C-alpha cells in the first residue's frame, strides 16, 4: 500500500496523525527498539528513522549530538537497514528513512532504494536534496514506489510550493518555521496563513514539524494539518527519563 493511502486510511479514524522521529543507533539500537515499541503501542501513526550522518546541517543541537554519538558508537548504514527490516516486519505502521543525501549517494542511489524497499521502508525525507538536485532520485522513488517526502517552508513562495508538490509523494513535510530542528515554534496567525498556503499548493496530506512539543501544540494543528511531527522532544525525554517514559508521553498527546 502506498504511503499516502496508508495515511489517508488512518485519517478516517483520527483528527490528526502523529509522526515521531528517532536517530538510529542513539543511544543504541536496543533503546531504539524499546522506544519504537512504546511509540507504536501508544498510537503513533508513522515513524521517521534518521540514518546518522556526520554533517547534519539542517539539524539543531539535540539531533546533531545524537547523530554524532550514534556514529561514535559505530552505527553503520548496513545496521540501519537490518534494523529497519526487523522493525517494519514487527509493526504495521509506515516507517520512513530520514537522512542526508550523501548517505544515499555514497551507497549508490539504486542500491539504496532496492535495499530500503526490501526493508519495508515507505518513504525518504532528505532535507538537503531539493528536487532540482534529485532527478535520478525521484525517478528511482517512482520505480521503487518509495515516497519522496518534499518539504515546504515559510520562505517557500506559492509558486515554489506548487512546483515541489509535483515532485513529492506520500505527504508534504511543512516546516513550521525558519531554522533547525529542536526549538519551539509559534503557532500564531502568520502560521495559519502559511498552512493555508501549503494546503492550497498540494493535494498531498500535510505534516507539520519543527518545535512541536505538547498536546496544546497538536490541538492547535487539528483541522489545519494532517499530521504532527514530534522530533527532538522524545530524544530529550529518553535522555532524561529513559525509553519507558516515551509511552506515557505519547499517550498524553492525544
Amino acid at each position: 500500500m502506498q504511503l499516502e493511502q496508508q495515511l489517508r486510511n488512518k485519517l478516517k479514524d483520527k483528527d490528526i496523525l502523529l509522526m515521531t522521529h528517532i536517530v538510529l543507533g542513539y543511544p543504541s539500537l536496543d533503546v531504539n527498539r524499546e522506544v519504537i515499541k512504546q511509540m507504536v503501542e501508544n498510537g503513533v501513526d508513522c515513524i521517521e528513522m534518521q540514518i546518522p550522518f556526520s554533517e547534519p546541517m539542517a539539524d539543531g543541537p539535540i539531533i546533531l549530538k545524537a547523530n554524532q554519538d550514534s556514529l561514535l558508537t559505530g552505527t553503520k548504514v548496513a545496521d540501519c537497514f537490518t534494523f529497519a527490516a526487523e522493525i517494519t516486519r514487527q509493526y504495521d505502521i509506515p516507517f520512513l528513512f530520514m537522512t542526508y543525501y550523501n548517505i544515499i549517494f555514497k551507497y549508490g542511489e539504486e542500491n539504496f532504494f532496492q535495499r530500503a524497499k526490501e526493508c519495508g521502508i515507505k518513504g525518504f525525507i532528505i532535507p538537503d536534496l531539493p528536487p532540482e538536485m534529485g532527478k535520478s532520485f525521484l525517478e528511482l522513488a517512482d520505480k521503487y514506489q518509495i515516497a519522496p517526502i518534499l518539504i515546504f517552508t515559510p520562505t517557500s513562495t506559492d509558486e515554489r510550493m506548487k512546483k515541489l508538490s509535483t515532485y513529492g509523494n506520500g505527504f508534504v513535510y511543512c516546516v513550521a518555521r525558519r531554522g533547525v530542528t529542536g526549538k519551539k515554534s509559534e503557532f500564531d496567525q502568520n502560521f495559519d496563513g502559511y498552512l493555508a498556503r501549503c494546503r492550497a499548493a498540494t493535494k498531498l496530506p500535510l505534516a507539520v514539524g519543527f518545535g512541536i512539543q505538547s498536546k496544546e501544540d497538536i490541538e492547535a494543528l487539528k483541522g489545519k494539518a494532517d499530521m504532527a511531527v514530534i522530533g527532538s522532544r522524545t530524544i530529550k525525554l529518553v535522555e532524561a527519563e529513559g525509553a519507558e517514559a516515551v509511552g506515557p508521553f505519547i499517550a498524553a498527546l492525544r
Partner: protein
Amino acid sequence: MDQNGFFGNWGGAYIPEVLYQTFEELKEEYSRCRKDPAFWQEYLTLMSTYSCRPTPLTYADNLTRHFGGAKIYIKREDLNHTGAHKANNVMGQGLLVKRMGKKRVIAETGAGQHGMATATMAAKFGLDCTIYMGEEDVLRQRPNVFWMEKMGATVVTVKDGSRTLKDAINEAFRDWVTNVDDTHYVFGTACGPAPFPEMVAWFQSIIGIEAAEQIMEYHGKMPARVYACVGGGSNAMGIFKRFLDEPDVELIGVEAGGHGADSGAHAIRLSSPDATPGVAQGYKTMFLQDDDGQMKHTHSVAAGLDYVGVSPILSDLWDKKQVRFESATDTEVMQALELTMKQEGIIPALESSHAFVGAFKEAGKLAKDEAIIINQSGRGDKDIFTIAHAFEDPSWKKFIIDRGIEYSNS
C-alpha cells in the same frame, strides 16, 4: 556552471528548502552584478582604496638563484588588507550584500583569515556579524578571535564534530536557515552550494588578471607554471582562472599532505586516492569520507587547508586534467617557509607555504628563461602562535610561559 550549478559532474546546490528563495535572490543579484561592468568597477575601486590592489608581483631573486632554474615570481596576496586573499572575496560579497539590502552577515572560518576579513567588511559596511569557528581553530588562532571581537563581530566557538572548518560551515548553515531573511552567509571559499563556487572564484579572479598583466610586463611572456595551495580552492581558482585558456601555462594545485599521503592524517582530496565523490555542505565534490559517506577527520599544520572537501570547479578541472594536483607535508612546509623567510624576507602563511613547496620541488628542473608564479595567499606573521609552535622555538615558549605566570598572578 550549468543552470543547476554544476561544473561537469561537480557542484550543484544541495540546500535545505528554507534557503531556496534566498538562493534565488542571490543568484539573481549575482548575475546582475556579473553583467554590470559598473559593479566590477566599483569592486576594483574598493579594492584599490581600502585594500592595496593591485598587489605586487615580486621577483624572488635569491630563491631563483638558489634553485637555479625558472625565474620565481611571487604574487603578493599577503599584502591585502587583513593579510590574505580572503579580502577579495569578502569585499565583493559585501558589495552584493549592500545591494540585497541585508543587514547581517555570518561566516565560517578555519585559519581565522576569512573570519577576520568578514568582520572587517562588516565593520566597514555597518553590518552585524557573527563568525563560526571550530573550537580547535579557536585554540590555534586565538589572536584572530580577539581582533574579530574588537571589530564588533560575535565569534561563536563550534564544539561539534571535528571542531574545525567543516563543522563551522555546518553551524553557519544552521544560523542561515534560522535568520535567512536579513542574513547573508559570506561563504569563504570556492565551495558550498551554487552560486558560491563560481561567485567566489569570480571575485578572486582579480588575482590572476593582475598576475598575468604583471608577468607579461616583467617577463615578456606567460609563465610556464602557476602554483597555488588548495584548501577550499579560492586562492587557487583566483590565480588559475585567467591562465586556463593559456595553452602553455601549467597550473598546479598543492594540497595539505599533513603527516604524509599514506598516514591517513592529511587533507589530500585530489592528489591521492583517499577521497571519493560525495555530497555535503551543499555541493558535490571529492570528499575524504568513509565507505558509509561519513566525513573523515583531516589534518594539516595549516588550519585553512584542513578541510574535507574541495572546490567543485577544481574537481572538474582535475577531471579534465587542466590542473595538476600535488601535495606538501607539514615538514616540507616548515622547511619552505624557513627558506623563504631567510632568502627573501617574506613570510608566507602556512597555507601559502604549501604552494612554495610545490614550486621549490620543480623550479630547478625548468629552464632559466622560463618563469613560474607562486600565489602567496596570505602572510604568516599573524600566525605566530602556530608557526613559533611548529618550529618549537624555545624562547617563544619561555616568553609564553612567563607571560602566563604574570597573568596568573595578577
